[in-house]
């Protein structure tokens, strides 16, 4: 272990303290630079994860240099000090360290080094550096957490643990003594939180720092409350049909100029609304409400039309819509929509709806699953009408005029048609899928026939 860096100086190395020990930490120097040391006299204490060891001087002389400070950890074999043997010791007289290669290894023969004697004693972890170094700066996990939770400035807490360390106990005592009247009642001192396997991922984008915050507008708040209430109340289910709007488009082109003269804009929505109202009379289950354990069937179709506003959404109601013709519905939609955007609706015009139509298709959307407008049981969604390649079947007249079996008389071809989806969310508490599908089928059939 020891070597001779110069003729008169003997190097002291970190000794091998056991087969499995690869490093040691200087605890304390018993000798200062300049002190005279005898061979085998202890010059410093070293600790490892297994044992504490006294390091003897390999030679008689003067402690010339200290190469490792207390607390420093060095690999086995690294120099920790130099002894100047001067003239009073033979240059070659370094005796092998007792803790060096001749020391019993901590593992192989069960021997322990140091003052524990020749046999091993039960293994107990020692508190690192107990009572020796200032440990007031070390903060344990629980102390850190409790200080954060209770806004405790740890610099003001007196530590009573080893080396002045602040213990959990000290923090509890500090909190209890600090503000007995003010701080305590609101928050329990220390809660036993159940173990959560994965800590919640920090919300980077929504973090406290960056995003601009603004309070919800009253309308936003109302919509938020209604939507959450609905999704938590109704058993939402969405059924979708696809409608060929060719006939509607044709009818609309025919009727539009005459309507325009009367100041009535004729939209696809008006056709859909009319088809819905007629079909609701045929399938009244869709024109109802759920009230507790009862289903309320409504005699009139009070048709809600969702109108999007700059900062929200409102659903004015067209009462007794079953009494209105296509023209009447078209006029009513135009009327409520314009007044809704101007903010001129009367309070009772947004109440009492029995079925709602929403029309995000005007913005190009092709599919959605709308949320039911409570306490209604269904909401129908008119999506964008776009040209799609579809398969159309036409009946072919045969030469003999007789119909043949198994579809030979039907000819399929691909055509370009204005198509649109009608998704409808409905409340599975009030009705079942077959009823919803039949209703949608009726709406589809009416639209594909071209209405009145």
């Amino acid at each position, binding site marked *: 272990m020891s070597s001779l860096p110069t003729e008169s100086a003997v190097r002291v190395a970190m000794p091998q303290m056991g087969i499995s020990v690869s490093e040691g930490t200087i605890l304390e120097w018993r000798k200062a630079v300049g002190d005279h040391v005898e061979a085998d006299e202890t010059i410093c204490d070293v600790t490892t994860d297994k044992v504490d060891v006294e390091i003897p001087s390999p030679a008689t002389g003067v402690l010339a240099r200290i190469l490792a400070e207390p607390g420093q950890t060095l690999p086995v074999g690294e120099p920790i000090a130099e002894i100047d043997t001067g003239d009073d010791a033979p240059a070659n007289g370094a005796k092998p360290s007792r803790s060096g290669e001749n020391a019993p290894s901590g*593992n192989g023969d069960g021997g322990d080094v140091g003052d524990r004697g020749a046999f091993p004693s039960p293994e107990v*972890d020692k508190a690192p550096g107990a009572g020796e170094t200032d440990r007031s700066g070390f903060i344990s996990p629980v102390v850190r957490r409790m200080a954060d939770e209770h806004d405790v400035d740890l610099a003001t807490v007196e530590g009573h643990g080893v080396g002045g360390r602040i213990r959990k106990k000290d923090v509890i005592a500090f909190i209890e003594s600090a503000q007995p009247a003010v701080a305590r009642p609101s928050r329990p001192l220390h809660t036993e939180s159940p*173990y959560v396997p994965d800590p919640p991922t920090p919300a980077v984008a929504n973090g406290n720092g960056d995003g601009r915050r603004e309070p919800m507008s009253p309308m936003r708040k109302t919509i938020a409350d209604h939507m959450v209430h609905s999704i938590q109340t109704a058993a939402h289910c969405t059924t979708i049909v696809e409608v060929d709007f060719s006939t509607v488009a044709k009818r609309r082109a025919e009727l539009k100029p005459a309507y325009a003269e009367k100041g009535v804009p004729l939209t696809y929505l008006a056709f859909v609304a009319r088809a819905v109202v007629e079909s609701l009379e045929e399938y009244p289950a869709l024109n109802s409400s759920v009230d507790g354990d009862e289903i309320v069937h409504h005699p009139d179709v009070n048709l809600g039309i969702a109108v999007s506003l700059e900062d929200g959404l409102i659903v004015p109601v067209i009462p007794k819509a079953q009494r209105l013709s296509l023209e009447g519905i078209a006029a009513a939609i135009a009327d409520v929509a314009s007044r809704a955007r101007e903010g001129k609706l009367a309070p009772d015009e947004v109440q009492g709806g029995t079925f709602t139509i929403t029309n995000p298709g005007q913005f190009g959307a092709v599919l959605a699953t709308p949320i039911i407008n409570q306490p209604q049981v269904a909401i129908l969604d008119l999506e964008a009408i776009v040209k799609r390649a579809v398969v159309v079947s036409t009946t072919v007249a045969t030469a003999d005029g007789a119909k043949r079996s198994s579809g030979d008389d039907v000819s399929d071809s691909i055509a370009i048609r204005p198509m649109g989806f009608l998704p409808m969310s409905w409340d599975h508490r009030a009705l079942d899928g077959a009823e919803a599908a039949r209703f949608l089928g009726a709406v589809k059939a009416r639209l594909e026939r071209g209405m009145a």
Partner: protein
Amino acid sequence: MSTLEQTEARPGGSGREAEQHPDADLTYLEAISDALRTEMRLDETVICIGEDIGAFGGAFKVTDGFIEEFGAARVIDTPLAENAIIGAAVGMATEGLKPVCEMQFADFIACGFDQLVNVAAKLHYRQGVAAPMVVRLPSGGGFSGGPFHSQNPEAWLLQAPGLKVVAPATAADAKGLLTSAIRDPNPVCFLEHKGLYRNVRGAVPEGEYAVPIGKARVARGGSELSVIAYGSSVHLALDAAEELGEDIEVIDLRSLCPLDVEAILASARKTGKVLVAHEATRSCGVGAEVSALITEHAFEHLDAPVRRLTAPDVPIPFSPPLEQAVLPQPDDMKEAIRELLAY
């Protein structure tokens, strides 16, 4: 299966009624005999098999009088061949019996290791066949038994998935856990500490009595420091806590596989300082596992490093003073607790 129904009819693990099942004052060893005898009387598929357990009544007299009551067909004396004992038990278990093997000393499990860890432990995994068997392992030192008769082999067993491992510390748990071990459809290793055999006694419910496997016991409640222990170390911890007069919690694990992780973490979170104590050697032992669990799942509740009090990684010496030096002693326990309290 009638025994199973009877267990379920009395819910709550400790499930017993004072009138029907008054407590008897038994030693740890008598409690083990009591559990065996009770289960053998209730269920004729329960069989004992081992060396000298019949005519001689067992090296420690656990099965004293059994051969007279149950006959040589159910109390089977074997040659000195642990692999044969456990191998035969595996065969019995797969054919519908519930064998309870006795290793004369836990150390000898090494001779039956292949049948235990490779056959019994993996039978259900490989072939879907249950092996409802118990291996009783008289373990531990403290009586100058030397390196072949004093070991605590639990860590070997815990590395064999498929085995359950229990280690009771009290007479009542010795009976209750052995009952549960016999009724369990898995191979269960039952560590019975020889040092507790005649030194520990207590109230033991009479008649059927089962303690669920996998549930730790709070042997002593406290809030300053937790000693998590099992077997003989529980008593070491309880005595030290009593003598020191400090607010110390002692958790008796009772079951080493499955471990009661919830109880371990709850206690660690409560006190923030944990000493894990066992008589078995240190490295890769139960203490290492418990310590790892705590640092993984309760780190933010810790006020000190989790520490261990164990035997060092050496064989158990024959010489009494040397053995005392190796096995954790009352003073070691007190010193470890004091140091951790002061931290």
